[in-house]
């Protein structure tokens, strides 16, 4: 037992309060320009995924032999590719692929992760040990290789990508949830609730579950960014939706043969991936910071 009087004294001035009876004034939430831009981009992305024609009415597969490899300009903002297809139209139509794969894979990973994590965190030590070791073993496989193994069994395509990325990222989520569950189970307020005479199921439902599951959406947003990145990588290797589907990674792969003469075919879809992941990370981190602030 250690006894501390007064706040811990560190070199951080932000924690200095003049009146100890007056809690620090909480700052009102004001989103910065970065967060706004990231949010706007994500909204655009969702619109593009839901109804791409609203943003880019042209056909993403329509080739125009008269306008092959034309650079970005007034007619084609992102230029055209080796078949004369409009790159912007294809990027817009590709959003659906990326988001579908990302969201579905994250859903698998988060759902499975939460269930396994809760199971490990709430059950007996033996079950926990067995589950944890299995998760350890599963995370020993590098994500990309595990995905390749999955594809070797199930063949390339969207469904394979979803399954592969979902399973490969599941152990991480399961571990986080398990850790959080143990933390909450051993926390002071759960112990205190025991002294109120609450039954175990009631304790779990009222105190453990809400505090474990609360941060999960935040995790999911950041995990979604990783899934989109992984999907692009696997598609680049030819394991995802097959050409001529306008998938971002696949577009890069197709365009890289023309890199020397027409950089826009491959670089611009790549930048779409980067912008998506950056936006998701910015929004996710901000949410997380707010969440942590609320719990402190």
């Amino acid at each position, binding site marked *: 037992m250690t006894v501390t009087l007064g706040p811990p004294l560190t070199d951080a*001035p932000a924690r200095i309060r*003049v009146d*100890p009876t*007056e809690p620090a004034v909480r700052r009102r939430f004001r989103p910065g320009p970065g967060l706004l831009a990231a949010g706007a981009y994500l909204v655009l992305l969702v619109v593009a995924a839901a109804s791409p024609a609203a943003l880019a009415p042209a056909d993403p597969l329509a080739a125009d032999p008269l306008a092959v490899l034309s650079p970005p300009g007034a007619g084609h903002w992102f230029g055209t590719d080796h078949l004369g297809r409009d790159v912007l139209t294809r990027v817009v139509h590709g959003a659906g692929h990326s988001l579908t794969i990302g969201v579905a894979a994250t859903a698998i990973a988060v759902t499975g992760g939460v269930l396994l994590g809760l199971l490990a965190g709430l059950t007996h030590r033996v079950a926990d040990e067995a589950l944890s070791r299995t998760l350890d073993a599963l995370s020993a496989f590098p994500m990309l290789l595990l995905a390749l193994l999955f594809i070797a069994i199930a063949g390339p395509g969207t469904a394979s990508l979803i399954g592969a990325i979902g399973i490969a990222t599941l152990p991480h989520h399961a571990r986080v949830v398990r850790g959080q569950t143990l933390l909450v189970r051993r926390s002071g307020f759960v112990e205190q609730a025991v002294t109120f*005479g609450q039954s175990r199921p009631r304790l779990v439902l009222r105190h453990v579950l809400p*505090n474990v599951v609360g941060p999960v959406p935040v995790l999911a947003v950041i995990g979604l960014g990783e899934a989109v990145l992984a999907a692009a990588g696997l598609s680049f290797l030819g394991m995802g939706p097959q050409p001529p589907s306008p998938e971002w990674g696949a577009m890069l792969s197709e365009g890289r043969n023309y890199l020397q003469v027409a950089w826009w075919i491959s670089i611009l879809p790549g930048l779409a991936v980067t912008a998506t992941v950056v936006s998701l990370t910015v929004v996710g981190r901000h949410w997380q910071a707010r969440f942590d602030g609320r*719990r402190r």
Partner: protein
Amino acid sequence: MAPLVTVEDLHVDFDTPTGRVAAVRGISFTVDRGECVAVVGESGSGKSVTARTLVGLAGPGARIRAARLDLAGEDVRTHRARDWRRVRGRLAGLVLQDALVSLDPLRTVGAEVGEVLTTHGIVGRRERAGRVAHLLDLVHLPEPERRARQYPHQLSGGLRQRALIASAIAGEPALLIADEPTTALDVTVQAQILRLLAERRAAGVSLLLISHDLAVVAQVADRVLVMRDGRVVENGPTDRLLRAPEHPYTRQLLAAVPSASSRGRRLAATPPVAGARVALPARVEVRPADRVLDARGLTKRYGEHTVVRDVTFSVGRGETLGLVGESGSGKSTVARIVAGLLDPEAGTVSFEGTPWSAVRERTRRPMRRRLQLISQDPLSSFDPRYTVGQVIGENLDPDVDRRDRRPHVVDLLRRVGLGPDLLDRHPRQLSGGQRQRVAIARAIAPRPSLIICDEPVSALDVSVQAQVLDLLAELRAADGTALLFISHDLGVVHHLSDRVLVMHDGTVVEQGPVGDVFTHPRHDYTRSLLDALPTLVAAGRPQEERP
């Protein structure tokens, strides 16, 4: 000769995201050579910032203004980083609270102490080990050569603190600044560290002692400065300040210290009445024979380590039993066993005449509401998602109608001195004292016959502690609730308890009526505890009001 330290009209402001905050607002003082000056204040008084400003470490974002800021004849107001480095360790050494975190946990004690020597080029590489051993010997660290090779976590709290002091005096500075140097320590160790500091002062070092505890600094300081809200409210020789405090705040601080002489009276007078104490409401009759709780032969082991050994005691209806012990004495383990959160290896607990330990949780559950627990850190005992209203409402009788719950909670808040405006606030938005009041409101909600209070006031400032102790005393008188009051602070226990239990190394070394045990201790350990206890000079205490 000019003073070693001269401070005139010092202001320290901090730029924070929420605006500029004034931490120190125009203070002046001096420290003479060989003098010990203490700065006393509660949290937020600006005492630590003042200390750190003297070594240029007030922190990033600090804005410092002063009419004079002299250290050993040097004007340090215009000092740049280089100049400060020359001052630190060589002109002034700094000792912080709790060496477990104030010494680098990844480096050996020897490396930490030796760092000063290398930084200032005091001794060559070859003589370093010898000098480090000499320094550790100087602070009475046994086996200095072996200790120098150990890491901070391998040393006990007291030895660690000695090592920290050794590192601060390694550069032979004329000024030693000690910021809460004994705060995390047990009372017996605290006494040793204070003796060590006094020894350094006798060797000619000036001391600037920062503390929240008047009784502690009274042991060594020549002069005391009382700070509040960034200002010095009173400054005078220790004797005079304790004997005849001039400022109402100083008086209030002195009156707030619980002890034998404050029994039965309020610690926090509202409004503060000079030199007078107000009696607490009379209590219902205490019936020790009618036992609420009976613990026999409790034993608990962790691995090969026995933390609690054959502990037997009982609590009578309406009685307050104090449980005193230093860290590691096993008192918190006893609290957890009694609270039914931990099963003992041997021994039994019975509560209100029914078996309490070694029964299924299902059996215990209906009785749970009769026995409540208040812990040291109320915030961690609240679900982080809950508002104050939900926290308290959770412990209401489940049969209370949904519509009646809110008035119930408001009533409970009123009983602990809080307004209904807090209902929808989150506990983390409250101050430490308010949080502990919420915890108390939650504990009294089911009208328990016994409340276990595990160090309930240890994290609070002395004036807030006084208010919370007064509140507990009032509630106890009104409800006739028995308390098992666990604390490391003998003064607090003496103030509040009817009987006391002294624990040491997992066993009860002595128990009896609080007056007997504290005035005629029979066990050596109790005696050493009482000897180590820093007390305010009796004459300095405010006059008692005759009942």
